């Protein structure tokens, strides 16, 4: 070993620098000296200078000015200079540098050198940084060396050929024959190189793969020799003879046996032998076993062998060495789809690995456990998974939660179990679940109608315990708002009864509203729920009003808008609040609070435009709220289209409302009945003469109108006549009046009956001409009657 003193001096100097600045100073001085030396003619210390430069390069400083020096040193006849020159080439000259081409010629010369160590340098460098052009140039040389040289060179040439094939795929054909013949060598290094080369050739070219299948018997022979041979000092590692070569051959066998029955059969016995004979107490043995298992599972092996392989993996799972457990689970993950039953047998061990200390092992165990969940083991697996969720590292929480949800959705044995599980996850890891979980859970709860009481009680309790998990709080608020009546009723078969007063429920919601932990979305949920409760409770409506009005001046714009509109519902349209109660049912499939809110928005808009009819209709519902209690048919079908815009869909909303079958106990507010005459209505009053009108509906189209005239003046009226005119399609028949004189001061009246028939049901109007004589003067006047008492505006 020749100590390069200048180099070591420099290293010592650099290491003794106390600060980064000092180190930089030392290095700058050295680099300057090195550059000066490079420019000089050949001196004895060239290799030392380059070595110094390489050290500086490894510290991270620029060293590109040494590239040309590398080229020069490679061309030097001295071995020491060549050695460092080639090392420099591998470190500074990768194929992206232009200078790399300059060494092609040197390499070519050195490949043909008489000294094998020089040849070895060239081969090593070519295999490390040879570009595609260099490879093409030098491929024939490599092929020559593959065939005729000593084993020291052959093994290096083989790996150099591997590099060439990786760079220039077409050259694979060139090396195939040489590779074939190398398999008959005895030297392990050469064999290893040959196997690597064949693997590379087969992976790139399927035809080559076909041709090399014929080598399977030879490979089996070689493996047998390795496995069954006695102790060989050259290649022994902890009792295994040349594990590196064994692993390589197993890998090649895997590639050759894939999708091929014949080849797989030929290697069956060998694989069984390796699997059973290999000592598994040390890592080396396990490495070989691992490769064997991978091969067995990848080729077309018989079932007995597959079971053996999976059992080896099962044994690995129990191994003390963490690495072994980790790779066992990685392998099991790959085959859980195809050999599901075999892997299920080891489920217990896998679930135990969920409690392992190592995060990578935990992650693998989680993925594998999720893959092993099935309908038969869902309950026990879920117990374990939920236990894991409560103690798992934070980076795995989201994955675990979503995995649990998927599993629960696919295999839930009952709705109650499903809801319980989802609630448990929200309580444990509510912060890590995905956004669509909340609407999904709400949908699930809505559909499980017989569990509403149980669910709302459970959620209420959870809300009391903890309001920090936003998803849980949102679902709980929604449930309290929707099923608040069930909560307040107090009795529930599924859980212990607890007395919840209206104040308690409102307290809970108010806590959520005021808490700094609640997100704006959560607050929205709570506010809407509070509003909904106003129709389900009786005593505390004022409290709700005050809560809602407070939020009318909230900083959050969304919340403020909601509060203001809810407030409006209280003030102007109190009767409509009851309709809000049914928002829960007239709902979109994805129960988002926004849509609930939009329903109220929709109802408020047309009201302000003055649709009185709307009010009346809803009035009906408000009055008859008892009939709209939760009934399964109504609640489950959730009619109504999605509410996206305000106006047009409103009528659809109402259409949904209208479809409600009204119970017989409802009385309509409209007071018109068929059988009695309406009270007389004054239609004309001028100059002391008044005319009143009363109607009597005779049939659907027939109407009898009675006109009564009276005289409030001091003088008598004579020749009092009435003439009537009606729209064209209406038939008129005037009966004889009772008289034609009206004495003064209304002592007597004149009545006249007019029979009308309105078959076309047009808007009924009547024009009446009044003519009379009084104090010697004639009077005439006309009055138009547009509305008749007892009929609606349309005259029907």
């Amino acid at each position, binding site marked *: 070993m020749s100590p390069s003193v200048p180099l070591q001096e420099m290293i010592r100097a650099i290491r003794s620098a106390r600060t980064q600045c000092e180190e930089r100073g030392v290095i700058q001085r050295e680099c300057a000296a090195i550059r000066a030396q490079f420019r000089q003619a050949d001196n004895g210390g060239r290799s030392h200078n380059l070595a110094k430069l390489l050290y500086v390069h490894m510290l991270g400083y620029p060293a590109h000015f040494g590239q040309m020096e590398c080229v020069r040193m490679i061309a030097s006849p001295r071995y020491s200079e060549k050695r460092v020159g080639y090392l420099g080439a591998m470190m500074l000259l990768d194929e992206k540098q232009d200078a790399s081409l300059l060494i092609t010629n040197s390499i070519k010369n050195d490949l043909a050198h008489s000294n094998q160590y020089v040849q070895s340098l060239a081969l090593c460098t070519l295999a490390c940084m040879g570009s595609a052009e260099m490879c093409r140039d030098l491929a024939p040389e490599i092929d020559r060396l593959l065939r005729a040289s000593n084993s020291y060179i052959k093994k290096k040439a083989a790996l150099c050929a591997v590099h060439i094939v990786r760079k220039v795929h077409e050259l694979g054909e060139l090396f195939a024959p040489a590779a074939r013949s190398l398999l008959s060598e005895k030297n392990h290094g050469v064999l290893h190189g040959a196997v690597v080369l064949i693997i590379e050739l087969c992976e790139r070219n399927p035809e080559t793969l076909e041709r090399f299948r014929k080598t399977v018997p030879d490979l089996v022979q070689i493996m047998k020799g390795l496995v069954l041979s006695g102790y060989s000092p050259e290649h022994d590692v902890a009792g295994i003879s*040349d594990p590196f070569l064994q692993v390589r051959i197993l890998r090649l066998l895997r590639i050759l046996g894939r999708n091929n029955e014949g080849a797989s059969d030929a290697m069956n016995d060998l694989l069984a032998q390796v699997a059973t004979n290999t000592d598994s107490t040390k890592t080396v043995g396990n490495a070989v076993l691992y490769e064997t298992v991978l091969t067995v599972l990848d080729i077309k092996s018989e079932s007995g062998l597959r079971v053996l392989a999976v059992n080896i993996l099962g044994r690995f799972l129990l191994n003390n060495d963490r*690495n072994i457990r980790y790779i066992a689970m990685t392998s099991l993950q790959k085959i859980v789809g195809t050999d599901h039953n075999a892997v299920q047998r080891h489920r217990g061990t896998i679930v135990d690995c969920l409690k392992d200390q190592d995060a990578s092992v935990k992650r693998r165990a989680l993925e594998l456990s999720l893959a092993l969940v099935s309908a038969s083991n869902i309950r026990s697996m879920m117990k374990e998974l939920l236990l894991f969720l409560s103690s798992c590292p934070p980076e795995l929480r989201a994955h675990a939660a979503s995995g649990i949800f998927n599993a629960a959705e696919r295999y839930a044995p009952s709705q109650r179990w499903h809801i319980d599980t989802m609630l448990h996850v929200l309580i444990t890891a509510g912060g890590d679940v995905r956004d669509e979980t909340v609407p999904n859970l709400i949908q699930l709860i809505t559909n499980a109608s017989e569990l509403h009481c149980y669910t709302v009680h459970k959620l209420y309790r959870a809300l009391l315990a903890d309001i920090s998990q936003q998803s849980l709080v949102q679902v709980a608020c929604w449930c309290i708002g929707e099923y608040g009546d069930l909560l307040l009723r107090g009795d529930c078969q599924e859980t212990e009864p607890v007395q919840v007063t209206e104040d308690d429920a409102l307290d809970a919601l108010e806590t959520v509203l005021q808490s700094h932990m609640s997100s704006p979305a959560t607050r929205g949920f709570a506010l809407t729920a509070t509003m909904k409760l106003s129709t389900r409770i009786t005593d505390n409506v004022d409290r709700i009003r005050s809560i809602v009005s407070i939020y009318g001046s909230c900083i959050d714009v969304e919340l403020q808008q909601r509060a203001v509109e809810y407030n409006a519902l209280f003030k102007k349209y109190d009767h409509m609040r009851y309709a809000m109660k049914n928002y829960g049912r007239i709902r979109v499939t994805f129960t988002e609070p926004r849509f609930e809110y939009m329903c109220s928005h929709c109802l408020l808009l047309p009201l302000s435009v003055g649709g009185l009819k709307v009010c009346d209709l809803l009035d009906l519902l408000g009055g008859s709220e008892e009939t709209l209690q939760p009934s399964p048919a109504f609640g489950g079908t959730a009619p109504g289209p999605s509410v996206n815009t305000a106006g047009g869909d409103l009528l659809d909303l109402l259409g949904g409302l209208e479809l409600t079958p009204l119970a017989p106990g409802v009385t309509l507010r409209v007071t018109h009945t068929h059988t009695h005459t309406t009270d007389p209505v004054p239609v004309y009053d001028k100059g002391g003469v008044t005319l009143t009108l009363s109607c009597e509906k005779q049939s659907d189209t027939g109407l009898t109108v009675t006109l009564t005239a009276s005289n409030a003046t001091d003088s008598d009226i004579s020749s009092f006549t009435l003439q009537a005119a009606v729209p064209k399609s209406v038939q008129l028949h005037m009966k004889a009046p009772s008289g034609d004189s009206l004495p003064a001061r209304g002592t007597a009246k004149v009545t006249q009956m007019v029979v009308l028939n309105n078959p076309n049901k047009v808007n009924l109007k009547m024009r009446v001409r009044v003519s009379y004589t009084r104090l010697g003067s004639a009077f005439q006047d006309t009055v138009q009657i547009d509305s008749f008492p007892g009929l609606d505006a349309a005259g029907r």
Partner: protein
Amino acid sequence: MIRFLLLFSRQGKLRLQKWFTAISEREKKKIIRDMTTMVLARQPRTCNFLHWKDLKIIYKRYASLYFCLAIENQENELIALEVIHRYVELLDKYFGNVCELDIIFNFEKAYFILDEFLIGGEIQETSKQIVNRAIEASDMLQEGDSSEWFEVELFG
């Protein structure tokens, strides 16, 4: 195939780097930073395998040095651990009870030993003795560096 091999101290100082694919300088620096951060952050009793991009990272600590190997996804991790161990054994045989300082002050020797063990990202020689003999012979050649060449034959 092995993509790269890194040796670094517990403070993250690089002691050896071998790259078996063509990568730009900037990319190399980034990879070194990533590797040192990832490996140094690992807890003591965790498994020696990591996933990084599309590669598997195998690392092992020997005294004050971390040996870090990156292999392709279809390679055998346990054998990679053996590769690291074999390299450490070779260094140990050569330097006699190797320590970090040996590798710092004789870094070029460490490279030469590595080049007798691995080529192009693959193992070239599975026998410890043959590798040792080859290095000794090369060193002798270097020492007797004059116009005359020593012919040293190895019987394969």
